[in-house]
């Protein structure tokens, strides 16, 4: 028996697998979101902030030298790296923070892997005068130090998480525990297209601005829709955001790129769709989706050079799109991502986030197999400044 206002499942995926204590908060959140989206004043405020604070629309950049170098399809970059705070995460963080104000709550908690969502949440909280606590695995704190400092500068409290694998999944556990404890005055500002309903829908809706803008810009700049849209997929918020603009254009191929880590065969990766042995449909963090797990249903440890893709589950809408073949999913290894990172730096003068570099890695494989009159759109979800320490370590200075 379910009486949600919006569809709470994507095919057989999604749902609301949370403790009873949280159910009323999810119901309230859904109600508030539905009413906000119908409220012209809310939408006007969101749009205004997107323009005047985030700097939207973000540009579409034709990657001329990269296209020439690869010798196939023409490549366009949707520049979410140029959004305020350096990644697409700010779109959703601001949208949800406006909902928090509407609900009259004063405090937000957020999880973060790479730190981009934590920075976006801290920024939104500072802008709107909310208290902000960010949970971050201690492994991720070590590898994304600049972002930790940014969050603190923005007035957020960063709480290191020492449980489990000390990465994103454990940060989500801890954020949920905080939320269960303080649910009456606290909102969980979930940063990816996962978790219990209505989060995957809310996050997609606030991120759909990427796809709407990109579609319009492609028509303006290239005079046509892309043949292929490529995005990296951790939880999947940037991918679902850009895909949503093209999902009805049946001729447009959608490709999501997961973290291949040290390669699927090594077992050290975060390719939920790529590992037929370890990835099975299960329930984690409130949602039913593909989950990397062992035989006994314990969530598997994952690995990726990019903290933002280092997560054992994938957003439920992606699981549905994979099953119904509206989108295709592949993976790029750490090495491929690092190569792509360097190639984009050299050919285009753009330092991409390691997460986004996975999408670029797929472009490097795919573009040469396409004709020169074909077009690829890549969602460049974030910039790579935060990753310099990691890259220096991996490549040597």
């Amino acid at each position, binding site marked *: 028996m379910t009486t949600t206002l919006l569809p709470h499942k994507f095919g057989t995926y999604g*749902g609301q*697998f949370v403790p009873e*204590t949280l159910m*009323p908060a999810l119901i309230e959140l859904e109600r508030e979101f539905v009413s906000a989206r119908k409220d012209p004043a809310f939408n006007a405020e969101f749009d205004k902030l997107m323009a005047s604070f985030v700097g939207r629309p973000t540009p579409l950049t034709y990657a001329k030298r990269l296209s020439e170098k690869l010798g196939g399809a023409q490549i366009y970059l949707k520049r979410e790296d140029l959004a305020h705070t350096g990644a697409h995460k700010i779109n959703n963080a601001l949208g949800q923070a406006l909902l928090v104000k509407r609900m009259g709550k004063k405090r937000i908690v957020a999880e973060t892997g790479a730190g981009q969502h934590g920075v976006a949440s801290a920024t939104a909280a500072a802008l709107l005068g909310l208290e902000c606590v960010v949970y971050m695995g201690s492994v991720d704190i070590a590898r994304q130090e600049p972002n930790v400092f940014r969050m603190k500068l923005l007035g957020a409290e960063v709480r290191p998480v020492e449980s489990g694998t000390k990465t994103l999944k454990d940060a989500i556990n801890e954020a949920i525990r905080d939320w269960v404890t303080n649910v009456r005055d606290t909102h969980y500002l979930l940063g990816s297209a996962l978790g219990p309903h209505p989060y995957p829908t809310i996050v997609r809706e606030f991120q759909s601005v990427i796809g709407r803008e990109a579609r319009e810009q492609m028509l303006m700049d290239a005079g046509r829709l892309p043949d292929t849209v490529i995005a990296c997929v951790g939880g999947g918020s940037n991918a679902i955001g850009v895909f949503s603009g093209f999902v009805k254009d049946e001729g447009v191929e959608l490709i999501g790129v997961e973290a291949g880590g040290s390669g699927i065969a090594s077992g050290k990766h975060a390719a939920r769709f790529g590992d037929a042995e370890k990835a099975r449909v299960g329930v984690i963090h409130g949602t039913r989706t593909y989950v990397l797990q062992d035989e006994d*249903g314990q969530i598997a440890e994952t690995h990726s050079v990019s903290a933002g893709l280092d997560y054992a589950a994938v957003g439920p809408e992606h699981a549905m799109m994979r099953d119904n073949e509206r989108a295709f999913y592949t993976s790029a290894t750490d090495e491929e991502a690092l190569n792509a990172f360097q190639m984009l730096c050299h050919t285009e003068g753009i330092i991409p986030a390691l997460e986004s570099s996975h999408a670029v890695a797929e472009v490097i494989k795919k573009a040469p197999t396409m004709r020169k009159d074909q077009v690829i759109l890549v969602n460049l979800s974030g910039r790579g400044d935060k990753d310099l320490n990691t890259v220096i370590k991996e490549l040597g200075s």
Partner: protein
Amino acid sequence: MTNRIDEAFKTKPIFMPYFPLGYPDLETSIDVIEALAKNGADLIEVGLSFSDPLADGPVIQQATQIALEKGITIKKSLAAVKELRGRGVTIPLILMGYYNPMLAYGLEKFIRDAKEAGADGFIIPDLPMEEAEEFTSVAGELPLIQMLAPTSPDERMEAIARNAKGFIYLVSVTGVTGERREISNDLGDLIQRVREHTSAPVCVGFGIGTPEQAQQVGQLADGVIVGSACVKTIGGSEQPVETARLFAKNFRSALSNTPKT
């Protein structure tokens, strides 16, 4: 088959400790649960470990993490329940665990094997009413214990309590499992709200750590659930089995002396 749960509630308030199988190791955990059962526990929540226990506080997180590191599985846990029945444990044993390991085991197989092992029901904190049908449709007569929280509005309480089987697990505080210094003043009102919707026994858990607190809650509720304090006291002891015996006796005697209201 006589219903062990209904039988357990003939004398109230009942004492309901939680202990995870596999902690501090499998053999000790079986001995501990046996000791609890034979020294005053009226029903035991037998914990199944999960890597990501998002409703649990630090004590149970750590204990179940250790259990996993030592190799506990669902299969071994079910075999342990069977072993407990073999040792003459006759009180109800309720399996408490998260949903994913049960799905991974296969729901129908899990429920069949749990029943065969001698389990009496299930508590699954990440399976609210909205998602429960998949489980209850194959659970047969074994109840999925419904949980209610202080945040549950009346209409939810009514809907959840209406379908309650066995007993109601009332979460006494908003939060994760773990001891609290004081029992909430609002607990009486909260229990009263639940009773308006059901005649099923109401058991209170989360935050109860001492026999005195148990007695206080026992004046209001039909059962008292003690989790983190039980795990911490017994798990932290040099002689866990002996400690379990004393722990159960202390709580049992506090509850047996509960003044009637």
